[in-house]
């Protein structure tokens, strides 16, 4: 998730500032992978550091890898703090960040949880469908702008796109960069976060914190309900206006008393489209209709059941489009079309992931959203372009004895530094990380 990358890049002080807010703590909790969530709750009521070895007992022995990943994520976010012990007899211990722990505890005991005051029921409130349509059209405007230069989004958005290096000035107009191409193929939440993070970085650190907190708070709102603008502070109001341009917030006009969150903003922190409990079946119908439209056959033909010119222009990044019918576009994946995409900086994985994300429900139900043969071929076409790999390395030669040479080669292989060696002229090449260890190894044993 983009947001984790961003949060992990913050310093401990900045993160702890963020953790002062209950809603932020909660929002982060539910964004974490399931295992990390469970760990936090296991440690929640323990107020003293526990030895890191006892954390191992939580997991089954078969999944140590994910166990470590989960812990690392929590360390990165400074949710779990590591107490290094300087005595041999006592092992390192871990504990929850007290600020974070306290806030989660508080929110667990809190029975009356409201984020913002809701507006009284009115008949003017937009329907959920209207909200969905609004956010969709707003966000598509941004994407349209990237994919063809005809349309013009609001100054704020084009400014952001420019700062994010997604577009670059080109003879007075803006044209898309290779980053921009990659951006187009990502899912909508990553796209939004990319822009939001650029937006946040444009602000001062204090403001940044308040804005992030506000964003997290927004994700606790309910779809289809109106919330009063008057209860927000000035900074929040300012952000609200900007979020409106993203299509994340709906307001009838800039002077309206109430704002309506859209599905996008509510699902933003979890990165998963929120489904409404009441009408899941209907929901699924809609989401399938909207999301899955690509059928890719083993003969490299691609059928896109869509009338959206945005989706077609996205596809044409890596597909040679052949025909266009009212509800269907047909294209073919060729070596040339994939190479064009690769030259633009799009990777094979991104293409495959994109097709998989947008596969037609029928293709998904068959179990093959993308045929293996096509996926493999796309990867091969990519590999074609990378026939030479570069590794920074260090060359050792003129070893004093064969023993010394053999021992060093063995050591390098064991430590995973080894790249190449030639026995006849006693040459050894190791990667960059290996330089220091090998030098000390030689010095210690043969120096």
């Amino acid at each position: 998730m983009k947001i984790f990358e961003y949060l992990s890049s913050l310093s401990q002080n900045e993160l702890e500032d963020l953790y002062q807010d209950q809603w932020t703590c909660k929002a982060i909790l539910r964004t974490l992978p399931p295992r990390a969530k469970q760990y936090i709750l296991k440690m929640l009521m323990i107020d003293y550091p526990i030895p890191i070895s006892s954390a191992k007992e939580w997991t089954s022995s078969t999944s140590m890898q994910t166990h470590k990943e989960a812990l690392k994520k929590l360390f990165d976010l400074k949710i779990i703090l590591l107490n290094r012990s300087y005595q041999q007899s006592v092992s390192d211990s871990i504990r929850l960040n007290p600020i974070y722990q306290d806030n989660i505890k508080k929110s667990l005991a809190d029975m009356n949880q409201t984020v913002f005051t809701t507006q009284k029921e009115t008949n003017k409130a937009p329907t959920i469908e209207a909200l969905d349509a609004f956010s969709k059209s707003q966000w598509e405007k941004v994407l349209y702008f990237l994919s063809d230069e005809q349309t013009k989004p609001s100054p704020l958005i084009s400014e952001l796109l420019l700062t994010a290096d997604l577009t670059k000035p080109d003879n007075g107009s803006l044209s898309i960069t290779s980053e921009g191409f990659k951006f187009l193929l990502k899912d909508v939440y990553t796209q939004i976060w990319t822009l939001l993070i650029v937006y946040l970085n444009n602000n001062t650190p204090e403001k940044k914190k308040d804005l992030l907190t506000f964003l997290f708070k927004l994700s606790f709102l309910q779809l289809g309900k109106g919330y009063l603008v008057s209860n927000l502070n000035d900074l929040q109001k300012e952000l609200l206006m900007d979020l409106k341009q993203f299509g994340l917030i709906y307001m009838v006009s800039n002077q309206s008393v109430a704002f309506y969150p859209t599905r996008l903003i509510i699902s933003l922190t979890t990165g998963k489209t929120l489904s409404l409990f009441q009408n899941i079946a209907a929901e699924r119908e809609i989401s399938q209709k909207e999301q899955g439209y690509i059928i890719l056959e083993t003969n490299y033909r691609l059928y896109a059941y869509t009338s959206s010119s945005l989706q077609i222009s996205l596809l044409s990044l890596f597909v040679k489009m052949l025909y266009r019918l009212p509800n269907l576009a047909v294209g073919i994946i060729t070596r040339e079309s994939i190479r064009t995409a690769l030259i633009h900086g799009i990777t094979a994985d991104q293409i495959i992931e994109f097709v998989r994300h947008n596969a037609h429900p029928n293709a998904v139900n068959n179990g093959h959203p993308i045929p293996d043969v096509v996926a493999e071929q796309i990867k091969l076409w990519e590999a074609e372009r990378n026939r030479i790999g570069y590794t920074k390395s260090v060359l050792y030669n003129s070893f004093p004895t064969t023993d010394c040479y053999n021992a060093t080669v063995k050591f390098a292989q064991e430590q995973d530094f080894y790249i190449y060696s030639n026995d006849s002229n006693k040459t050894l090449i190791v990667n960059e990380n290996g330089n220091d260890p090998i030098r000390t190894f030689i010095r210690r044993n043969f120096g």
Partner: protein
Amino acid sequence: MENNSIANNIDEDDDTSLLVIIVDCNIYSWGNREKLLKEGTLNDEKKTYITFSKFLEHLMVFINAYLMLNQENQLSVLCSKIGKSEFLFPNHTANDPLYSEKTIQEQILHKLQNMDLNNINETEERNISSSFSAAMSMALCYISRIKKATPTIRPRIVVFNVSPDVSAQYISVMNCIFSAQKQSIPVDCCILSQTDSTFLQQASHLTNGVYLKPQNQQQLTQYLLSTFLIDTYSRKFLAYPTLKSVDYRASCFCHKKIVDIGFVCSVCLSIFCKYSSSCSTCGTKFSLKIELPKKTTTANNTTTVIGGGNQSATASTK
């Protein structure tokens, strides 16, 4: 990053679940406990017992934590009272379909707190057992309804139990357990009384659920957060307590007594505590006269198959 289409995210890192909580609200069991606590006549082990209102506090923290874990987590709370069980949440009579998180907790708490008063007059004095089997069947029906709408959801049942087993409900409870097993719905049991529950032991054993009798009920929240909050997805890779020994004793079909040794009809496998010449369930006549074995306390969990025709005389079930 995550795929948006519902059909695709089966294998993904997804812990969205449907939790059905069955709370034992047997007023006699809770009342009795409260009385004992007030008198202070409890032995050391029972001293950590908690009252109903304290229990509610722990339960609410648990519910809060559950809802906090995932935006899409779904919840249902049932209570099994004396002679009746009902939904506390979702409340089907409420006309407002949209609820906020706040009202979930408030609705449940409101219902649970107001329950004691309106219930006590209705109950007959003789019948003091809670209707666990009814609550269990309601839970399963509810789950199957939700599953129809969202096939990918991972359902789970958590039972909080205080009152003793009712052997009269043996057949219906076992049927529920088997149906839960068939749909792979884990039944987690939290036993708040001193005695183990045979039914719930079997339930959690057969469905791969958690069976836990907290040693120190004052710290119930820690048990709930560290063990009962683990969703079905995370169970694949997290350690959680399971049962070591399970009491498999069955109760007989004729007098609903729990039996160590009994008689089993060779045709329909009904269990009886006394020998009779014909099966009351399927009507098979047992022609063979057999030597009745002496009941011994050491031969636990043994049942005798009554010879129907040329069947062998004894067999042991597990």
